[in-house]
């Protein structure tokens, strides 16, 4: 995964202890007042730099909640799990990017907006193994107050960077290639795939209970790791995420083979933004563009 350390200094401005205690305070309130049955948040793991998800059901346990600059996981994945679903309503600790996932899930009828209380934490980028994640470069929701969250915690004021992010630069390089070179690039990427489906398992938006990859009659995607099946799997998954992916980049973090899923998803997100002026997970009222039909849709592509 590509990382960027330029911004790590800015994180010093954030007082994580304050954020953490505010989260704990809010969680206690919510549980005591029985507004929610579970608080999904981050807890301390074996390493300080790798917090793990915790599920708090008892107001006395709120001190298990932690928050620091290493809280990179997108916890919204749990909202579609049957065990959690059965225990609505919930509260969930989300960064801006994760909050977009929650909005996406509501838009796609997977959860009800009223079932979830989003604790939106201001974030100036999260760190993985010492480096700020590349997705944080151009984040437009560092302070999630501009999207639909129930409560904003912390108040950082950072305009999103106007200079091109690492991903944008890489994308530019990719677009300069000839079609054959680009095809070869992706073939090289996908050839490494071992079909562990980690990308799918960690993705909050891969919520089908029967994935097309497991469809057997007929089997559209070969399950054997090999060029053909790998290409089919990765391309189909990318298509399935068009206009829905919020670029939390958990898939690319989970991938043990380092396939550039972050670049692929960023590319598709750019396409959707350019073609439909749509950014996923920003608005509860807007359906993903590929699932809507409008007489005013751009029809320039019809030759």
């Amino acid at each position, binding site marked *: 995964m590509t990382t960027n350390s330029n911004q790590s200094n800015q994180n010093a401005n954030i007082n994580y202890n304050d954020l953490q205690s505010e989260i704990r305070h809010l969680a206690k309130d919510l549980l005591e007042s029985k507004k929610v049955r579970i608080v999904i948040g981050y807890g301390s793991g074996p390493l300080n730099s790798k917090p793990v998800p915790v599920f708090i059901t008892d107001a006395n346990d709120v001190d298990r909640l932690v928050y620091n600059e290493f809280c990179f996981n997108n916890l919204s994945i749990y909202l579609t799990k049957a065990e959690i679903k059965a225990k609505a309503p919930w509260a969930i600790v989300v960064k801006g990017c994760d909050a977009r996932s929650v909005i996406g899930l509501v838009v*796609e*009828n*997977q959860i009800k907006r009223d079932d979830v209380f989003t604790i939106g934490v201001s974030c100036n980028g999260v760190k993985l193994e010492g480096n700020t994640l590349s997705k944080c470069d151009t984040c437009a929701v560092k302070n999630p107050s501009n999207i639909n969250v129930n409560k904003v915690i912390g108040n950082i004021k950072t305009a999103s960077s106007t200079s091109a992010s690492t991903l944008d630069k890489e994308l530019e390089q990719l677009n300069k290639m000839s079609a054959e070179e680009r095809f070869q690039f992706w073939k090289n990427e996908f050839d490494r795939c071992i079909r562990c489906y980690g990308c799918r398992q960690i993705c909050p938006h891969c*919520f*089908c*209970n*029967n*994935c*097309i990859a497991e*469809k057997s*009659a*007929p*089997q*559209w995607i*070969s399950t*054997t790791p*090999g*060029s*053909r*099946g790998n290409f089919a799997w990765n391309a189909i998954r990318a298509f*399935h995420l068009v206009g829905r992916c919020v670029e939390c980049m958990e898939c690319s973090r989970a991938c043990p083979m380092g396939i550039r899923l972050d670049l692929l998803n960023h590319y598709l997100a750019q396409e959707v933004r350019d073609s439909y002026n749509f950014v996923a997970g920003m608005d509860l009222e807007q*359906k*993903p563009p*590929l*699932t*809507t*039909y409008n*007489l005013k849709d751009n029809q320039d592509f019809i030759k």
Partner: protein
Amino acid sequence: MARIGVFVCWCGENIARTVDVVKVAEAMKSIQGVIVSLDYKYMCSDPGQKIIKEAIVNERLTGVVVALCSPLMHEKTFRTAAKEAGLNPFLLEVANIREHCSWVHEDKNEGTKKAIEITRSVVERVKQNHELQNITVPITNRALVIGGGIAGIQAALDIANGGHQVVMVERTPSIGGHMAGLSETFPTLDCSQCILTPRMVEVARHPNIKLYTYSEVESVHGFVGNFKVKIRKKARSVDINVCTGCGICQEKCPQKKIPSEFECGTGFRKAIYIPFPQAVPNKPVIDREHCTYFTKGKCKLCEKVCGPKAIRYDQVDEYVEEDVGAIVVATGYEVITSEKFPEYGAGRFKDVINGLQFERLASASGPTEGRIVRPSDGKEPETIVFIACAGSRDPAKGIPYCSKICCMYTAKHAMLYRHKIHHGKAYVFYMDIRSAGKGYDEFVRRAIEQDGALYVRGRVSRIYEKTVNGQKKLIVKGADTILNKAMEIEADMVVLATAVTPSPGAAQLAQKVGTPYNEYEFFSEAHPKLRPVESNTAGVFLAGSAQSPKDIPESVSDASAAASKVQILFSKKELERDPYVSVVNTDKCFGCFSCEAVCPYRAITREEIKNRKGEVVRMVAQINKGLCQGCGGCISICRAKACDLIGYTDEQIWAQIHSYPADPIDPTEENGHE
């Protein structure tokens, strides 16, 4: 175990010329499950069908493939034959080796190879076919007619007189269309209004016709026999149930200088107006764009003078829904304006007008009461030039087609001019004279021979203004291509027979109705010869100039034809349709309802899945078989592949794809062909 019969047709020479049909039939024999495979000169003939029927019975076939022309031609023929032989008709499939193969190829070897692949793929598909039953849906015996011109009026009256309900929607404040504004009609010179207005009145009085004027179709949902139409009744600002049509409001309205749409800009109207004296309904409408009250906030003179108090300034657009079983599109035409012609002054010269404007000048009910005068100074033109094909048949103007009506009306115009101004000179510039039709050529000859219209074969290159002896003249520069010489005419007035185009908004309406249109936005017929008044959308019919430029007799016969098609549809209580609809596997559906968003027929509903305690555990999509048209939109959007199309299942498509030889592009692929 599948027992498949394959029947390959020669189609005389049509297929056999480029496909070795004997070889195709032979090749099919090696496929597992194929019991019989043979060829015949004309499969669609009676003996051909007999071969298939006998094979079905004798060989106890479980599936049949006929390799021949497009299924559009003969699928029904052969499925009926299969049914007669006791086989479920949906176990018979057509392999198209004519349109998709023999007609588009020249090399017989390659053609044969391709025909074998096509037929093999359909054999594999048929193995996956299941017995299916047709779906029956009820029909609403009520028709919608869009457009209240002569075509719409005729269609509505015919359907209504046939005993069915009709809903008519007209965009403007009155029905009548362009015909209401014409002076006299070729080739008999009947007064246009005299023959039209009785029919307009009949529409208004007909107990079976519900009339919505000043209204537009907002949306159309559903399918043949079961359309749901949303109609926007635009705010008229007048309660037409209260208004008596006395006209005092119109008389008193201070806004006098608004170019009248009905007069094609040759005359004026008020801000509250009845478009023309014979309008149906004969009730006024307020043009809010020009009304002093709506633009400046005060006036309300019409309200003050209105006896029955019918003025409603606060009226808003109203929406109504109507259920109909068939739709007749009769949206008519428009003509392009002279602004499109920079070479003829681009609309700057007041005395260069178009044909519809001339109609108003020549009409007894027009702004000049039938006196043909120059718009610029009101003087009678001594020399008038008519230019046919202004824009039509001119690819440079984007209109390569013939507007059809101009040759005739230009002859009529020249004639009317000469009848009214005996000493005047009427020149007609033309490319060809197209006067096919009963009494049409005689009419043109009469204009030339009896009424002395001066016909010049050639085009006009330029028109410009010049003052000659103190009088403003239009200099028309053209060529007479028969005498092969340049011509220059000092004219007082020029009439352009400008090209006929579809009504504005035709394409948007076509999209709402869901029916195809051509590149010029004329509605497309299902077949140019055999199904001229049907669209490709079942239950949607076409009448008049919405389809292509048409004159009055043609529009009327179209309308009657469309009305007859509607009545054929209404003659049944139920409609049988093929069973190709989508189904949802509710186990796989995870309720994202993307299908609901993409479904153009609103066939997707939400269903609750409950547990034993009766609690709702999740929501899934369900498909209304009556509404579903089997377009497959839901299937391609469904990420979990929970939707499948009966008759075109994934299994069938997969079997078909699989029957093709392994991917020749990448033979080194390690997995090979799965």
